[in-house]
């Protein structure tokens, strides 16, 4: 097999390269810049061009080679190229081909367009490695337009009552989507993590206010605050009172998660594929062998085996979670990297 699952991560022996390794290695291909995929300590990095600035912002001065989508390179006879994964800016699926054997390592992906990230592109292969964060049929996400509208309506309604709208979403990916979706003349205040991430991404910050210690309540009166999961329940939030709290996450699909988060509103906004998305992605690759990681992998692999007659198996990953752990991880992971 061209690809092996080792305790350092997904490994291609022929090219001597790891994909999103968990431990320091010589050569690493990074699918995207989220902290559970992009780690420090590797000697050489390869990633998509749009990941360059954010990787350097997060990992420091690394030795990084970048590629555009569809731009091929060779490593010891292995043809390697990157394809859009639609997850966040610069996220890529990695296609590896050697002597007619084709693998696609999809990293994290979503199939539905968010009107911001380059959309997911299916890649034909024999062997497909897929995530399964939302690999249960209860996770079918509404269209981005519907969610964006309810977000804007909610903000308007809060402002009419003189309330600030505090929105929680993670700094890389979600925050930019939210900012793109906002249709408002209200002042928008960004937590410094988000402001700095925007800067690293080259995302235009000129319309937004960066939070600093000089913050005065009157700046908003009322307005919008965008922060990350680590701010939830922290005294930092107190200064924005009176406010309503909204959380943007795929986990908000479940009433239990919504209520437990103590948010006033949950907006179902995810950068991962929902159930329909996972299924269409797997189908469109035409792969006979499917390796399932991250999430409800047991159920999703069983579904693909029994109902889709595919050779599907689950793959152990370092970071396993069940529901709430994923949720906390998703909400917090960004800040761990700062």
């Amino acid at each position, binding site marked *: 097999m061209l690809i092996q699952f080792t305790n350092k991560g997904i490994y291609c022996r022929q090219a001597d390269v790891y994909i999103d390794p968990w431990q320091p290695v010589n050569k690493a291909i990074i699918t995207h810049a989220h902290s559970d995929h992009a780690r420090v300590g590797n000697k050489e990095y390869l990633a998509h061009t749009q990941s360059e600035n954010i990787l350097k912002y997060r990992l420091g001065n690394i030795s990084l080679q970048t590629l555009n989508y569809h731009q091929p390179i060779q490593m010891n006879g292995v043809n390697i190229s990157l394809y859009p994964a639609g997850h966040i800016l610069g996220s890529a699926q990695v296609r590896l081909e050697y002597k007619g054997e084709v693998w696609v390592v999809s990293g994290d992906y979503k199939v539905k367009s968010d009107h911001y990230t380059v959309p997911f592109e299916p890649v034909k292969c024999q062997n497909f490695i897929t995530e399964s964060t939302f690999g*249960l*049929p*209860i*996770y*079918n996400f*509404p*269209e981005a337009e519907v969610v964006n509208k309810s977000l804007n309506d909610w903000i308007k309604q809060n402002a009419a009552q003189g309330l600030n709208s505090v929105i929680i979403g993670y700094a890389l990916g979600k925050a930019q989507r939210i900012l793109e979706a906002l249709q408002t003349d209200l002042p928008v205040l960004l937590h410094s993590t988000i402001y700095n991430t925007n800067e690293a991404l080259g995302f235009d910050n000129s319309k937004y206010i960066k939070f600093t210690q000089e913050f005065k309540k009157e700046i908003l009166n009322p307005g919008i605050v965008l922060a990350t999961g680590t701010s939830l329940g922290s005294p930092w939030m107190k200064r924005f009172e009176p406010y309503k709290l909204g959380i943007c996450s795929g986990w908000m*699909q*479940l*009433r*239990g*998660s919504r*209520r*437990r988060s*103590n948010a*006033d*509103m949950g907006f179902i906004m995810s950068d991962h594929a929902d159930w329909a998305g996972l299924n269409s992605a797997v189908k469109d690759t035409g792969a006979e062998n499917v390796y399932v990681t991250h999430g*409800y992998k047991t*159920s999703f692999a*069983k*579904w693909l085996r*029994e*109902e889709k007659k595919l050779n599907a198996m689950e793959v152990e990953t370092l970071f396993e979670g*069940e*529901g*709430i*752990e994923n949720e*906390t991880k998703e909400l917090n992971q960004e800040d761990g990297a700062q």
Partner: protein
Amino acid sequence: MKAFTQLYSELDQTTKTNSKIEAMSRYFETADPVDSIWAIALLTGRKPKRPIRTGDLKLWATELANIPFWLFEESYSVVGDLAETISLLIPTAFRSSSVSLNTVMNEVLNIYTKTVEQKKEWLLSYWNVLAQDELFVFNKLITGSFRVGASQQLVFKALAKTFNLDDKLVAHKLMGGWLPQNTALKELLFNEDKSFDDSRPYPFYLAYQLDVPFEELGNINDWQIEQKFDGIRGQIIVRNNKIFIWSRGEDLMTDKFPEFDSLKNILPNGTVIDGEILPFKEGKILSFNDMQKRIGRKNLSKKILTEIPLCMMCYDLLELNGTDIRPASLHTRRVELEKLLNDHPSSLLKLSPLQQCNQWEQLNELRLYSKTQGCEGLMLKHKQSIYETGRRRGNWWKWKVDPYTIDAVLIYAQSGHGRRATLFTDYTFAIRDGDTLMPFAKAYSGLTDKELVEIDTWIKRNTLEKFGPVRSVKAELVFEIAFEGINVSPRHKIGIAVRFPRILRWRKDKKPEEINTKNDLLQLLKAV
């Protein structure tokens, strides 16, 4: 259905009582009265029984979602709520419906007697058209699990606000056995005719646990002190030569207490007594365990009626000669109650004895003594108090005896439901019995959300075995468990059952070696 669903989600999204009242008031202002009457019924707990078997619901939802059954079960265990699971599995994008709550509910009432095929056809006619949030509320209604985060009091207040009425009056009008399918909103709220419903009870006046110092209560002689009996709070109503018995939960329980039937010939018409129904034999109150045995029976055999006879310990008089005397002072009502029981004696009616105590300092002694009498503690009622509606602070207080407590170790965990789905929050605790650990109680409540998440994470890392949804875990975390009563129970492996167990606190300072033993429980049992 759309407006009612909107109301449901508004109530679901806020914890502020004022916002809840406003949301309900907005609904009542705009809704068709035939829908409003159903909304009132559902919001005050008058939900219909489950018309369709859960097994059928699961099966049909699985078919409609086009997934294998195991995947349905897997999804259900993650969501933790059947109604929600089904609403998430059925594809509902781009739907919008215009069916009314009244139509849905009237159809529900007619579905019980239909064949399984007819039920399925009916159900699919909704599952195929309702939008996702409506589908969720609809499923809540037909799974019999409809509950909403608004107390009855708030519903009364919202109605009072909308229709410009007094909320206590609304509370009274909404008591009793009215049925939404044959009651008009106008009739329910504005009808003055007393003969409208002989069975209608008064809203119960409930007390809070005493949490203010005695100095704030003033002179002890202004207070009527009674024991807090441990039975079923109820109202006996005699009107037009008929008798009705209501429990505090607003269940009409007349049939459960056939021995009280003779009271309709003893008490004058237009009498309503508030009291505690107790198992009582040969001059002694029996345990609450006996009460449960009696209540649990579907068929009341002669044997059980002789074994566990009941009486009413009378606390208060609410209606005298057909007149509502709740606005009179407790002192006056007590005089009338004594007179009534004196003039119309029956062995079924006992007068709740007044406790003598002239100094606050001595009250605790009295409270502790009450426990040896099979009571839960004391009631303090201001002698000038009127009979209020619902739970209120100020003039009535209950002062319960502190609960029993025991330190136990967590051994099994299961994920919770609703808000707690996907978290392991339902725990089984064990105490030590020689070298083994013996399960002794299940408890769900008492921890903060933060603690729940912390324990959840611990459970996932310390699972020994999985049995379906249940996990056994390392016996390491110690908790202090409080409970109200303790009894012998052949149904439990340990041979002891405790009443209303809950988690008092997480004892991070204690090791599993330090937990209590079965012997400690037996000592408690002996002391009762």
